[in-house]
């Protein structure tokens, strides 16, 4: 599974969304599942999937599906 597929899989599992919903419109609080608890579930899922530990500032800045891709590049995860 490549990084893109891993990234998408974490989102789909954390928020119960379909591949068609993984767009630039997917943001924190844009769907009921991406609430405070969903946010932490998704972050933990990404940390497990890519064997990284996100800094606090990056967890706060991780406000959308698209923004998250840029943040993970800081951790040498190219998506």
């Amino acid at each position: 599974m490549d990084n893109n597929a891993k990234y998408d899989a974490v989102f789909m599992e954390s928020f119960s969304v379909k591949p068609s919903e993984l767009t630039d419109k997917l943001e924190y609080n844009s769907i009921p599942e991406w609430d405070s608890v969903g946010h932490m579930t998704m972050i933990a899922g990404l940390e497990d999937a890519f064997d990284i530990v996100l800094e606090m500032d990056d967890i706060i800045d991780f406000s959308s599906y698209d923004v998250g891709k840029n943040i993970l590049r800081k951790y040498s995860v190219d998506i």
Partner: protein
Amino acid sequence: MRAFSLNAVELLDYQPNRYPFLMIDHVTRVEPGVMADGYKNLTNNEWYFPQHFPGAPNMPGALQLEALAQMLTVAITTLPDMRGKVTHALSHYVRFRKEVLPGQKFEIKTAVLSWKRGICTGTGYGFIDGDVACEAKMVITIPEILDQYLPKRYNRE
């Protein structure tokens, strides 16, 4: 971290609930961030027995679950800088197996499975005379910690 016990007065520093909603009497052993065990002694004077139920008093299941959650909370609020923090329930899955009656000692064992960024996942068991009366998987949070990790340009739901 060092394990220790908390008597009925000492535990008030780590558990914000008060009468009539404090559901634990004593913490026999707490290892901060790892586990907390203790008990609730049940007498005929418990406020819920007269109504739940007349002639057949037993501890409401929701309050058994609350007791487990309060004990799990102590495992977190005894961590450094956590004393006095308010906790909220996020999700609980519980199974009840045995009635809990006046005169019995409701013994509680809880364990922290994970504690990260303000969210605690843990397990709890309630025992009567050595038998499991109820068991639960619980997720609790300290909102004050959790909020620190949320995207700031959005309001918390």
